[in-house]
């Protein structure tokens, strides 16, 4: 019978019974599942084979023989030995051709293993969820296309987004452009099965826009068929770590760079006893010893001049009141005051000597002295220049001294003689009034007066300080100019010159009254002296100001000058350009010096036969 073969060979546990509950057929699996191997069961009653079957089941069987179907998806049994078992079954009648019940079909399956796996899965899912939500590390499930499938709160926190916001961009969007390529390469290796997982330090773009360093660990989750399903990415914020590390690297690089790049600065490190442990390129260049000759073999004493060290030892004994010798001569003070800078003479390998400035620093690690660092530079050249400057200074101060003497001679001796000549000329004329008309005597008188003036001017020049900044005062410009106008009023009127002061009341300049008065008077008298006889002479004074300077302009309509010819010597000593009788070339020289002493400058514009404008720039005091 085919149905019997069908039942017999079915992969599940199936048995077929007649209406008396006697076995018609049973599958191999049924026989295995119920431990019936080797027993003859066909034709025998189910209850005979399993006498323990209770009334409840017999009742179910009777109901099913009457047409009912009894099913259970997962029935739980706790066996007497304490083991657990889950069963599923299906009990239903089978019908003969005439439509009457022929007996029962029973199908059972032991689903204990599946149930246990299911339970485990549920448990591990709960565990994963807990870990996922509570983990301090960012965890994300990322699709194979790079879209976020799920992200945990830590991930959101690290990147600064809310969960909803973070789900929008792909991880590529928030990865630093420089880090994308290596990340993608590793993703491909994962997908190609070349690796199980990868770690990568990369930068993510925080919502704020700045990048943060993170340690990314990615593994690929595959389905039961081994097909890639999704990535699990774990992200640890290592921004602080990375920053610190980065700084440390930078510092180390710098230090190393310094050590090696400084070819003219020697760096020698020693341990606490003086043994050389560091010896840079600069030291090698300057001293001629190679690192091989020095490192872990020598102490710095080899490059020092013995007498100099002994001399220093004596000095230290005087300072410290105790014997200091050997390597301690160099490091006693650095040890006590952190560092010491001194000039020393160093010995090269070839025996030649050179001057250095050496700074020795005590090096501590975690508060403990671990050695010393000596940094030195060749100062021979500086020494040479220094002595050159010193000799120049000697020459200069010598010259200064002579200049002072000269000033003294001008001030005193020349004045005595000039005074005598003046008074003698006057006496001569008083005693011999008839000589007043003598041309020689007239010229003598003029010469005596000129000599007196000249000496007075020279005195002004000599007495003038080049810098007077400490005496500067805030001066009201208009008042000073009005005062100066009063001073020259007599000669202005005598020469019919109109002086107009247009200077605004609000201007203040930095200066010294005497200097400012002298400057203004000089320009006014200049304007009067060099007036044009062909028109009404006018001198106009104006002022403008910017933040730095007040510019005072003295504009006349006089005879003017050809600046192309005279500008370079205009402010020189004893230059006059007009053949004017009382031209006094010293005036502009002194004025220029006074203006400069006040921190200002002078400019001039002039056209022959039109007039001259002098501009004086003085420091603006309004802004101070």
């Amino acid at each position: 019978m085919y149905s019997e073969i069908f039942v017999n060979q079915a992969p599940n546990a199936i048995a077929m019974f007649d209406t008396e509950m006697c076995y018609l057929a049973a599958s191999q699996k049924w026989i295995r599942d119920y431990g019936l191997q080797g027993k003859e069961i066909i034709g025998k009653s189910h209850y005979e084979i399993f006498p323990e079957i209770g009334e409840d089941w017999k009742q179910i069987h009777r109901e099913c023989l009457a047409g009912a179907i009894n099913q259970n998806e997962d029935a739980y049994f706790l066996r007497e030995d304490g083991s657990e078992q889950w069963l599923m079954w299906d009990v239903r009648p089978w019908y003969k051709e005439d439509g009457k019940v022929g007996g029962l079909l029973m199908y059972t399956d032991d689903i204990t293993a599946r149930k246990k796996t299911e339970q485990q899965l549920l448990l591990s899912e709960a565990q994963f969820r807990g870990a996922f939500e509570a983990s301090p590390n960012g965890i994300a499930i990322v699709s194979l296309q790079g879209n976020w499938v799920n992200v945990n709160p830590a991930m959101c926190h690290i990147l600064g987004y809310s969960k909803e916001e973070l789900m929008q961009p792909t991880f590529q969007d928030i990865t630093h452009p420089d880090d994308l390529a290596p990340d993608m390469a590793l993703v491909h290796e994962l997908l190609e099965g070349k690796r199980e997982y990868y770690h990568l330090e990369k930068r993510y773009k925080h919502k704020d826009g700045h990048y943060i360093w993170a340690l990314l660990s990615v593994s690929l989750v595959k389905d039961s068929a081994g097909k890639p399903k999704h990535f699990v990415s774990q992200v640890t914020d290592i921004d602080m770590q990375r920053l610190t590390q980065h700084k440390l690297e930078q510092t180390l690089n710098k230090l190393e760079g310094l050590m090696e790049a400084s070819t003219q600065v020697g760096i020698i490190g020693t341990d606490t006893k003086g043994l050389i442990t560091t010896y840079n390129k600069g030291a090698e260049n300057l001293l001629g010893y190679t690192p091989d000759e020095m490192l872990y073999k020598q102490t710095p004493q080899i490059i020092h001049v013995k007498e100099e060290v002994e001399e220093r030892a004596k000095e230290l004994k005087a300072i410290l009141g105790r014997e200091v010798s050997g390597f301690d001569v160099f490091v006693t003070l650095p040890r006590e005051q952190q560092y010491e800078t001194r000039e020393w003479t160093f010995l090269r390998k070839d025996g030649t000597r050179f001057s250095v400035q050496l700074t020795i620093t005590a090096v501590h690690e975690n508060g403990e002295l671990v050695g010393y660092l000596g940094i030195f530079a060749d100062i021979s050249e500086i020494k040479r220049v220094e002595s050159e400057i010193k000799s120049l200074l000697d020459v200069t101060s010598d010259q200064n001294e002579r200049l002072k003497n000269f000033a003294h001679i001008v001030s005193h001796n020349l004045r005595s003689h000039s005074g005598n000549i003046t008074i003698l000329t006057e006496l001569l004329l008083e005693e011999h009034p008839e000589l007043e008309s003598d041309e020689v005597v007239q010229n003598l008188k003029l010469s005596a007066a000129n000599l007196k003036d000249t000496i007075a001017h020279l005195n002004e020049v000599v007495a003038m300080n080049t810098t007077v900044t400490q005496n500067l005062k805030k001066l009201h410009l208009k008042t000073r100019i009005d005062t100066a106008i009063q001073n020259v009023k007599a000669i202005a009127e005598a020469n019919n010159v109109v002086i107009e002061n247009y200077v605004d009341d609000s201007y203040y300049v930095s200066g010294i009254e005497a200097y400012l008065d002298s400057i203004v008077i000089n320009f006014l008298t200049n304007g009067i002296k060099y007036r044009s006889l062909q028109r009404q002479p006018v001198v106009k004074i104006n002022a403008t100001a910017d933040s730095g300077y007040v510019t005072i302009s003295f504009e006349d309509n006089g005879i003017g000058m050809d600046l192309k010819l005279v500008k370079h010597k205009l402010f020189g000593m004893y230059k006059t350009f007009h053949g004017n009788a009382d031209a006094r070339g010293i005036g502009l020289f002194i004025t220029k010096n006074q203006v400069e002493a006040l921190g200002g400058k002078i400019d001039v514009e002039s056209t022959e036969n039109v007039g001259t404008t002098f501009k004086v720039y003085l420091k603006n005091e309004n802004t101070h």
Partner: protein
Amino acid sequence: MKTRIDIACLVDDDPVYIFATKKVMTMANFCNSFLVFNNGREALDSLIAIMQSGAKMPDVILLDVNMPVMDGWQFLDEFIKVKPLQKTIIYIVTSSIDPEDIQRAKSYSEVSDYIVKPVTEKTLHNILSDFQQA
């Protein structure tokens, strides 16, 4: 009209100055007689001798600063120590316009004024009015 003074004393090493100043003094009708010394030492020795002899001391001394042997300052220091009984008015008369010298002259209470050479009739008239007020 101002009364002239009795004895004027000139202490200076410059003969031209002495010559000219004496002439100006005469013309200005400044004094009855002159005492002239060529340096501080000469002046000091002579004046001490005059003082000790009880003779008349000069009313005014016009004292130069820069002189050989003993300069004006040294003379002043020594002369002050002698403490003359009669009042003598001392003027520093010099070509120097060095502010340091002017300052130094002011530091002596015995010095009436600082006169810059040359000495003119006007200078002498000023001295005369000082003298009369004193």
